[in-house]
């Protein structure tokens, strides 16, 4: 028996293809299956091909596969583009009006042409087509229709639900006689607790709320915006204020104002917006204002590919802004890490008084998976050295930027008695005063400059000591070590499992924190690896370069992908075999 089942729902924008996919995924998740859902859509509002791939299995999934078992299409283009993905003996469900080219189908594919597209004017008729599509899907695949009904009943108001239910059922009844008594290839059983169907951006937003974040600011840019949308919707109940700014420069500066005043704050953008924020990133670092910023990568350079994925901003975010300063860059690899690393990012930002960048990509930000509830017990808020009035009374004259052993000095928030100071974007001494050109500092500028810069970097060893900056999956030593960062983790882990099943021993090194760079930990793993394969979603092997720079180790083999789509486990497996051949 096959261990997974993938269905691609395809149609023009506006026909509810993505909600059809998430309905199936929720229904499956509530019944002890695991899902992974990938949406692909062009940067268009109406028209254009939208697809939603739903992959189902009895085990947790971390990636999608290109091969599909079922294609349900409401548009000609949806079929044309995806014929070749449909596996032998697969299912093709198409609206009756479409022209199916059976010469392009794999052997054994069964074709069902049914009236799916709803006639009638207006967006409501259009979007109901997805209920017809789901009815047909249940009939021909054997997916239990009552599970779909249960989800729709929860999602819609009763009148709307009833209309959709009728259409779902009637299409199901029409399709059923044509279907060969299908049984769905995966087992269903009601789950004890309903899991979530959640994407990376939802997880980041929840992590922020759990961390006590009270302010967000930003300017819309796909795929970063949905964090802001989530916080705009759900933040107020947690006392969070979201402000849409006039541009990304304003957004990051608002966040810096909020951080200076003592509130945990987050921004979210993509590469273009992050580019505009660059000058202020250095400001946050030098003024030592805590800041958490999400950069969800999309295809680049420039406007690039708004709705497609890439891992090409790594070198940029590591180096963005003039001068030298310490920043933390964390690249969560999955939904779980999106939540917990975001929570941790706020602690790190406040403890070390610096900017933390959460680097994700469209694939992670926007793909959903079945996930149990996050465990929040034991998650502790650490605000670092905050100077209250009592502490300040005992430490006069207060020096905001006092040179200390670990580089961190006590932060007084405006409104606290005894803590008046200047926070500044100029290079400064312990009192925050400008060290260049002022009479008081005239003789000591070189000395103060060195101390001021060292102060920022003195935090580095302490940060590295507290982080689990790399993670190794699989056996301690293997024939081949895959080296990955960010969302590539999921496909790499599944590829590792596939390889093991094929008798090939593989392990996976995930670099979770890219700055400060965990050179010792990476060296430790790579120096005992027999063979190495770098798997990255960019053209110039950015992680590979970083590893070489920090460790001197050159990763022998590279699998670089920059075709605007994410890696799949099967693609990585092929490469593994090629490398070891």
């Amino acid at each position, binding site marked *: 028996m096959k261990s997974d089942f993938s269905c691609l729902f395809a149609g023009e924008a506006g026909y509810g293809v993505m909600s059809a996919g998430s309905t199936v995924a929720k229904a499956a998740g509530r019944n002890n299956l695991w899902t992974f859902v990938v949406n692909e859509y062009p940067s268009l509002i109406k028209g254009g091909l939208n697809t939603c791939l739903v992959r189902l299995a009895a085990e947790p999934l971390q990636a999608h596969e290109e091969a599909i078992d079922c294609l349900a299409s409401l548009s000609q283009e949806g079929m044309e583009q995806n014929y070749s993905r449909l596996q032998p003996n697969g299912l093709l469900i198409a609206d009756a009006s479409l022209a199916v080219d059976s010469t392009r189908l794999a052997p054994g594919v069964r074709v069902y042409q049914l009236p799916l597209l709803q006639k009638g004017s207006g967006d409501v008729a259009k979007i109901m087509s997805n209920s017809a599509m789901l009815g047909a899907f249940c009939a021909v695949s054997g997916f239990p229709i009552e599970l779909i009904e249960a989800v729709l009943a929860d999602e819609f108001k009763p009148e709307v639900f009833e209309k959709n239910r009728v259409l779902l059922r009637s299409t199901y009844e029409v399709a059923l006689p044509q279907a060969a008594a299908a049984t769905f290839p995966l087992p269903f059983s009601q789950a004890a607790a309903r899991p979530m169907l959640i994407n990376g951006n939802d997880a980041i937003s929840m992590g922020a709320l759990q961390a006590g974040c009270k302010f967000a600011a930003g300017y819309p840019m796909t795929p970063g915006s949905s964090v802001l949308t989530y916080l705009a919707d759900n933040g107020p109940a947690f006392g*969070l204020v979201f402000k849409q700014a006039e541009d990304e420069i304003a957004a990051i500066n608002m966040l810096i104002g909020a951080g200076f005043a003592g509130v945990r704050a987050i921004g979210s953008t993509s590469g273009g917006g992050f580019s505009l924020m660059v000058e202020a990133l250095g400001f946050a670092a030098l003024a030592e204002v805590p800041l958490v910023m999400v950069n969800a990568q999309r295809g680049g350079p420039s406007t690039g590919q708004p709705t497609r994925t890439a891992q090409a901003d790594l070198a940029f975010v590591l180096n963005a802004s003039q001068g030298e300063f310490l920043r933390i860059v964390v690249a969560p690899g999955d939904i779980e890490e999106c939540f917990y690393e975001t929570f941790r990012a706020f602690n790190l930002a406040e403890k070390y008084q610096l900017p933390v960048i959460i680097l994700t990509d469209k694939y992670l930000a926007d793909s959903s998976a079945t996930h149990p509830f996050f465990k929040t017990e034991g998650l502790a808020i650490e605000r670092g050295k905050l100077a209250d009035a009592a502490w300040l009374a005992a430490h006069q004259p207060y020096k905001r930027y006092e040179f200390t052993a670990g580089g961190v000095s006590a932060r007084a928030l405006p409104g606290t008695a005894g803590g008046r100071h200047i926070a500044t974007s100029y290079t400064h001494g312990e009192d925050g005063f400008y060290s260049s050109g002022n009479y008081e500092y005239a003789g000591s500028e070189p000395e103060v400059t060195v101390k001021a810069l060292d102060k920022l970097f003195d935090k580095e060893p302490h940060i590295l000591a507290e982080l689990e900056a790399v993670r190794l999956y699989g056996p301690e030593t293997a024939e081949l070590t895959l080296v990955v960062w960010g969302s590539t983790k999921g496909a790499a882990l599944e590829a590792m499992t596939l390889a093991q099943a094929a008798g090939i021993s593989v392990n996976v090194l995930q670099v979770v924190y890219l700055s400060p760079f965990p050179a010792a930990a990476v060296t430790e793993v790579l120096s005992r690896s027999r063979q190495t394969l770098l798997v990255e979603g960019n053209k110039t092997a950015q992680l590979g370069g970083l590893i070489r720079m920090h460790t001197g180790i050159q990763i022998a083999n590279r699998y670089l992908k920059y075709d605007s789509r994410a890696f799949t486990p099967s693609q990585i497996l092929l490469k593994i075999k090629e490398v070891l051949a």
Partner: protein
Amino acid sequence: MSAQDANLAYVPTWCPGCGNYGIFNSLKKAFATLELDLEQTVLVNGIGCSSKIGQYINCYRIETLHGRSLPVATGVKLVNHNLTVIAEGGDGDGMGLGMGHFVHTARRNLDISYFIHNNQVYGLTKGQTSPTSEPGMFTKFTPPPLGNVERPVNIVDMAISLGASFVARAYTGNMPHLADMMVQAIRHRGFAVVDILQPCVSFNAINTYAWYQQRVRTIAADHDPSDRERAKSLAGLWGDEIPVGVFLREERPTFADSLAQLKEGPLTEQPVTGINITGLMEELT
């Protein structure tokens, strides 16, 4: 509180005779008049000669980037509306790089005062054209024979059009009046702009003390600042006669008034622990 309380031990680095000294002293006087709690006051600066004022005043200060004082001030005010927030910077800072922020901060009407040291030139970078420079002005970047050919921005006129709820102009040659404008601006609940005419003795040979002295006229006592139309037409005057005083004063709800999240108190006082996101997780099932 006296004006001295706001003093720091540092020596200002402005050129002798610079108008910034008058602004500095007037600001301290305004703080004293208002008996401001300096622990609850935040001065947010940009970058420029003007912006250095934050280095010398003893309240909480944040010296931001060139052009970015207003968004930083916005962040401070939104998360702690109990603070008195004052943004301050130059004409280049505010009308050049910061213009976009000026437009939107005015629309937003947060309770922030914004003092623009308008010397009609870039001082700190040693004499380039500013968005408020006079046509024909020769600077390092607009040398003879052409000089500056762009029309200057009229800060007061713009502020009124954009929706600032308090708009005034003052001149550093009349410090009691300047301090009074600052006091009124800080007292005003809403975005309060003061366009401060400030001679730069090193790089602006046109708009000198004498030049301003001849032109500056206090707005007549019978002007009603709630009369927006009248304020607009007064704002249009610039040349032989330059009005100073309060052009416009409107009582309007501030942006922060619209936020239910702030009703319980500032965000800085909201708990960051004991948060329960179970409901959010349930919504995704």
